[in-house]
């Protein structure tokens, strides 16, 4: 394994360069050597498990007795399971809601907090905190905030307004949206940072020219800011899409998929299948389906972006 990584490059160098091979040889090898640790890590901890996961999805996994080939059985079982079908709906609602919400809020925060002033720097750091806090901790915090009696932070606020305690997490019609709000809170600052970087690159002279022309705030946003930060927006959108589809921790720590499966998303379902029902084959199949969907979406976004760039 260690020897094979640099090999192709070395051989190519040898073929093309002929008599000067020694010097060029090294030049071809060195970048690969520098890449080697990263590649190795990716190989061992990413690509190998991924390949193994795809492989296992075709088996009834029995580690000790030997796996049994079942073809596409795991896939049909997962795709026809009504709980997985429900989970698709929840994943889409949660993923889209969370992504759009976090991008809008992130954009608003970026616009508000753009600038060089020291106070803004402090504020930006403070706003960024949710993104660096462990999701499990955030989940516990929000559980407390969502506490379903008037002792809970949010419910005590509602109580002051004379509104009854809301069962944020225990009402199956609300629980998914409560989870979404927490997701937006976590991810908005993350998007903010990327968008801030985008905003920093906007040509100031355009703003000045626009100000001279007397455009409205909305026009300035629509015709200058948004087009200028499109690359950043695409990154944010791609990341948010992937994150939205594989949302797990937020749901797991807040509701565990409950009540009555109303917040069960694709990955919590796969997790339950794999680790509490011990059906590794089925869980692998579910994960592969998600991988394909994610891949497809990412490629689509990229395609749309390229088409947009060309225009």
């Amino acid at each position, binding site marked *: 394994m260690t020897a094979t*990584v640099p090999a192709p490059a070395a051989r190519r160098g040898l073929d093309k360069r002929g008599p000067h091979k020694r010097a060029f040889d090294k030049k071809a090898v060195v970048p690969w050597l520098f890449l080697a640790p990263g590649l190795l890590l990716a190989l061992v901890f990413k690509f190998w498990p991924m390949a193994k996961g795809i492989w296992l999805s075709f088996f009834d996994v029995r580690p000790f007795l030997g796996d049994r080939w079942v073809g596409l059985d795991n896939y049909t079982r997962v795709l026809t399971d009504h709980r997985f079908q429900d989970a698709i709906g929840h994943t889409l609602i949660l993923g889209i809601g969370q992504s759009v919400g976090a991008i809008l809020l992130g954009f608003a925060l970026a616009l508000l907090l753009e600038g060089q002033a020291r106070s803004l720097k402090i504020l930006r750091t403070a706003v960024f905190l949710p993104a660096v806090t462990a999701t499990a901790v955030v989940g516990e915090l929000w559980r407390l905030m969502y506490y379903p009696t008037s002792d809970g932070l949010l419910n005590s606020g509602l109580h002051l307004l004379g509104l009854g305690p809301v069962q944020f997490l225990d009402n199956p019609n609300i629980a998914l949206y409560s989870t979404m709000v927490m997701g937006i809170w976590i991810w908005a600052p993350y998007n903010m940072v990327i968008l801030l970087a985008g905003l920093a690159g906007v040509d100031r002279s355009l703003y000045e020219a626009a100000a001279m022309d007397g455009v409205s705030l909305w026009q300035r946003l629509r015709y200058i800011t948004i087009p200028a930060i499109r690359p950043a927006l695409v990154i944010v959108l791609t990341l948010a899409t992937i994150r939205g589809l594989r949302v797990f921790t937020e749901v797991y720590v807040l509701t565990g998929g409950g*009540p009555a499966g109303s917040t069960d998303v694709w990955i919590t379902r796969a997790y339950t299948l794999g680790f509490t029902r011990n059906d590794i084959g089925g869980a692998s199949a579910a994960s592969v389906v998600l991988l394909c969907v994610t891949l497809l979406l990412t490629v689509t976004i990229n395609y749309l972006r390229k088409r947009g760039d060309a225009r």
Partner: protein
Amino acid sequence: MRDHRRRRRPAALLVATALAFGTAACGSGSGSASSDDPNTLEVWTRSDPDSAATYDRVFAAFTKKTGIKIDYQPVINFDQQLQSRASTKDLPDVMINDTALMGSYQSQGLLKPIDPASITGGDQITDKSWSSTVGIDGKHYGVPYSRQAMTLMIRTDWLKKLGLEVPTTWQEMLSVAKAFATEDPDGDGKADTYGIVAPGSAQNGYAAWWSSSFLWQGGAKLIEPDGKGRYTPAMDSAAAVNTVTWMKDNLFCGEKGVLQPGAITAVTSTATNFQDGNAGMYMTGPYNITTFDGTLGKDKYEVVPAPAGPAGGDVLAEGENVYLGARTGKDKQERALAAFLVSPEGQKIAMTSVDGHQPVVRIPVNSTLDAAKVRDDARWGVVQKAYEDASQQFPNAPSFAPIKQDTADALNSIFTYCGGDVRSQLGELNDTLAGDLKDQDLLK
């Protein structure tokens, strides 16, 4: 020349790093170095460092007595680790883990059958305990090690303040719960107390776990054996419908405050209202006694038998078994360890707490021991009596995990939607359970 060397140094470093990773990757799968030594047993328990300290003492005593060394591995995510070891075909020699997992392990071929007569001192284990290690083919696949049964933990100071008695029936329990919720037993003038703590989430099957005592008390069963190694699902019985309806109408959809807020999404780690002092009753296992003594205070609560339902007072019994890994070839040493673990000496060490570490045997399986005496705590007598006289285990001969999870999903859903029709929802659950049994070729 210098140029040359400069270039070579990072390359050498990289190769070394790569080699290190390569060896690490290859090394991680194989067993420990000592696994070939016939006089060393590799033992796994599902333990955190706290209980591992108690196991350390047990194994030290065993080594001292027999000269057989123990390579002890406390593992927290036991099943994931065991699966990866199983794929290397090299299992730990001895494992101590939940009784409910037996069928799952046996169906995966991970366990060695055990003849009770071959375990020295095995005759000191009651038939009831031995019967809980019988697999689907009638052979024993584990040695009972520790047992426990659920009991009701109740705030005696609250009872006294409100002039109430310890409840002995569901109805009495419900009245007490309502009184705890509405009559301000903590005397702070606020309506911030609750009757009963329930971990009602479907996560990890908690809803099924907590409800099972009620189901037994109502005369219901999850699945029923036909005596010939086959099972039928039994959650559409009248007893099950009545029990679940009672729980739904009176507990989850009943008056406010009967259960703690958020019961429907609570798991045991978040259902802390009893130890936080704002809920008065909690039906749970005796491992919580140590916690409650510390957080709530020994003088504030009592351990009492669970209130009886229409079909009696049976509660859920659980525990740990000693399992012997398949194909390990150290039978004699393994049986010696199992015999020591269930002997009065081995059980006593595991039942006592040194330096505040959690004991690992709750109710001894060795019938010559008395939990209350060994621990010098009468409350453990209540637990032992509940286990011996009025308890049922989960059926563990089939692979139980899917059955528990599906039951939990269904119960959580029934308890969430108060307007639903219990009978038809349990009918659906029954079909799902039939599917689970069919997957295992166990459906009658």
